[in-house]
């Protein structure tokens, strides 16, 4: 399959990151890999957009960070979802669904 280097709008990237972390704490590289996998290779998040987004999410208090040992015993910075982050995820998810549905509807209508 082709690899889209799709430029995600920041809001959408936030949503994807929060969704990924809902499955459990991850470090930055793993988040980008996971999004790549879960989108069947369509979405490739470059580190240039990933890390600024992670820092912004951290500032908003939706995710928190801590340093830990990675799989190969290297030091890595892990991110996990906070309670308010979980609430934000639900809110953004339903907003996105609503938006996507509406857009699809418009495109279908003759």
């Amino acid at each position: 399959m082709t690899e889209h280097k799709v430029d995600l709008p920041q809001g959408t990237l936030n949503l994807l990151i929060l969704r990924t972390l809902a499955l459990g704490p991850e470090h930055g590289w793993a988040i980008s890999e996971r999004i790549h996998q879960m989108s069947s290779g369509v979405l490739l998040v470059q580190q240039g957009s990933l890390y600024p987004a992670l820092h912004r999410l951290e500032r908003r208090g939706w995710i928190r960070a801590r340093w830990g040992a990675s799989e190969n015993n290297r030091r890595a910075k892990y991110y996990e979802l906070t309670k308010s982050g979980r609430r934000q995820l639900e809110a953004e998810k339903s907003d996105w669904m609503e938006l996507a549905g509406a857009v699809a509807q418009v495109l279908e209508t003759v």
Partner: protein
Amino acid sequence: MIADLWIRLRALFQRKTVENELDDELQFHFERQVEKLVRSGMTREEARRRVGLEFGGMDQVKEECREARGVRLLETFIRDARYGLRMLGKNRGFAAAAILVLGLGIGANTAIFSVVNAVLLRPLPYPGSSRLVRVWHVPPAKSFPGMKIFSVSPANYYDWAAQNHVFESMAIYNYARADLTGLAQPEMVQLARVSASLFSVLRTQPMLGHAFLPEADQAGHDNQVILSHGFWQSRLGGDPNVIGHQLTLNGKNYTVAGVMGPEFRMMSTPVQIWIPLGWTDKDRATRGVHNYMVIARLKPGVRVEQAQSEMNAISSRLAAAYPEDDAGWGALVVPLREDIVGDVQPALLVLLGAVAFVLLIACANVANLVLAKTLARRKEVAIRSALGAGRWQVLGQVLSETVLVALGGGALGLLLAQLSTSAIVTSLAKELPRATEIRVDGWVLAFTLGISLLTGILAGFLPAWRLTKTNVNEALKQGLGKTDADSGGNRTRSVLVVSEVALSLVLLVGAGLMIRSLWALRQVNPGFDFRGVVTMGIALPQTKYAKRDQQSEFFNKVLRRVRALPGVVAAGTIDALPLGGSGSTQPIAIEGRPVQALSEQPEVAVRLISPGYVEAMRIPVVWGRDFNDADAADTEQVILISESMAREFWPRENPVGRRLILSFVPGVERTIVGVVGDVKAAGLDARQTQATIYVPMNQDPWVWLTLVARTSTPPSSLVSPITAVIHEVDPDQPVMDVKTMDGIVSDSLFDQRFEMLLLASFAALAVLLAAAGIYSVMAYAVRRRVREISIRMALGAQANDVLGMIISDGLKPVLVGIGIGIAGALALGRLLQSLIYGVRSTDPVTFVTVSLLLVVVATLASIAPAFRATRVPPVEALREE
């Protein structure tokens, strides 16, 4: 939100750690990506190269992360500030000059603001002071022309207190002075006679002991006193066992019941001892004699307007119930702070405005200096812009320097203001209400910080803005040191000169008007000759001089001996000196005229004088005669009246021989034996003089009189001889308030003199700064035109002609500034109108003089640089490429 703050703080204070963490994180990502590619079959080097390409612009990523962290702005500030400090360090001359100039400007502003803050802005030092009001009597306009407020009588006070629903509590008091004995030194002390309720109205209790009990308001239960903190410290050594201590005031014994805390002030009078009212029933019933002041605390939720309407209603009721005493009398409710400081508000605000102008001029001067510097750095700025620095970043850089300089000036100014605070307080303490509360506090610090920042931004803004408009190409092309066809800089300089001149002109007009006003006041004829007269006050203790003839005998003895002294031309006594701020009034009934109720009768000033007073003060005797020794207690009761009173009541006839009665002393008919000239007793700037009656001391003796002596030698030289004479008659009798009449007249003009001195100083400072500004602008402009000048001279132009041309070119912005300044001064002059006397705020003489002065100053400031330019040999000038 807390997370946000935490992250920002970490980013700010642990920059290195945070930066390293970011590096580690990105490095980790890099390594994992490389591993992924290696596992899919690539070689390590190939993988590293691929990932390196993908990663590209690491710094960009880092930058975005930093931005995401949200401390960019502050980091930029800090970086600019550091850079600014380095640049200033290289340019110490500029920094020193700018800091000094701004320091003086900001310091003056801080000093004036600390006064305005303490006097006008800060709430009074009592809890809940915004609820405190003063209640005045309003006298009927007919009997008291021109008087809007008057003191209160006891009976009316009690009725007010009983009938109102708007005040939570009320208090009544007045001031007095008394002889204190029973302590180490006998002396005269300042008293306040207060109702027991005063302490609850002001919500302040004594620090030691207790306040007066309610029964202290009655005679017989009033033998307690409360001391001020200062008095307790200085006269009793701060003795902690002072409660119960005995002392004697005017011969009466009192016990100390309490001591007030160090911060307590009695409105604006420095009181040393508080005594209770001690009123008899008769005192309480007095309705027609008004000698007291009343304050009250509004009930919660009651507005001043409501209180005013209720007091109006109560006054009408009282006027109807007691027409004799109260017909036509109203009441006025004024918030207490406004009552105390309202008079000085216009003057202080004018000073605040004036000193702000001086600061603006200082800003313009600094802006000028900055302009010269920034133009030299155009190349640097051009390079920065080419490398991507935004306009705001360049602006920020320049501003950081001026803000740093301004903050330095602010620190200097704060120091100067702090050092001068005690001098300010001492010089103003007697004249300015609340002067003792002046100090540099948190608000003053905040103000200083605020205007320092504002000054820095203002001073740097114009030059910085110009700089950002630099054409990159042009700037990079030109060599250093070459004079550039830079008309923009010229315009900015002209703007600075115009504004400096305009601001200076407004200040000069203000100062000029005050000077003329003071001069006009000095020319006013007060009705007496105040030169060569010495005065001193004598207060006889009533216990020692209980009988009236003892009192008059004392003064007569003293006067006989004083008149015999060499150097004394004439001597007399009076109970209240003109311009002394005190003096009583009484209603009168004129013989042969229809009988009127007390409250309808005309009210006149009454003064007690001895023979010789009129002569000593050189008051002209218009008709009839002065008092003499034949006017004794047992002969016909005689009086003198003032000229205006004669004109008012006996318009076209000689009033000598007419009789009238002073209504507070009913049944005693007094015959007019003379008419004397009017005396401006209330103040040199008073528009009307009140009708005045003079009663002979021998026919109505009193214990407290002021001795007045005209001397042929300097007045102060006779103080000791006169004091010695008084002690011959009574060795224990102290004298007080020794002053020359000249000094008293001067003191009465203190406010105007003070305001004038300050405004004149500010104006002088402004002119100096403006002259410096014009000088430097001229020097710069002339340097640019050196080639042109030399060519002209080489072609035969005379030095004088060239000089004239340069100067007239330089004067163009000055003239524009004068024009704008005149317009501004005409508009703002109206604010001064209430402060000046005898001259209009549009006075043409002042305006013309000031304008000419500025033209002369500007010309002088321009001559030196212009002259030097004409001296440069043409060969050198042309070589300067």
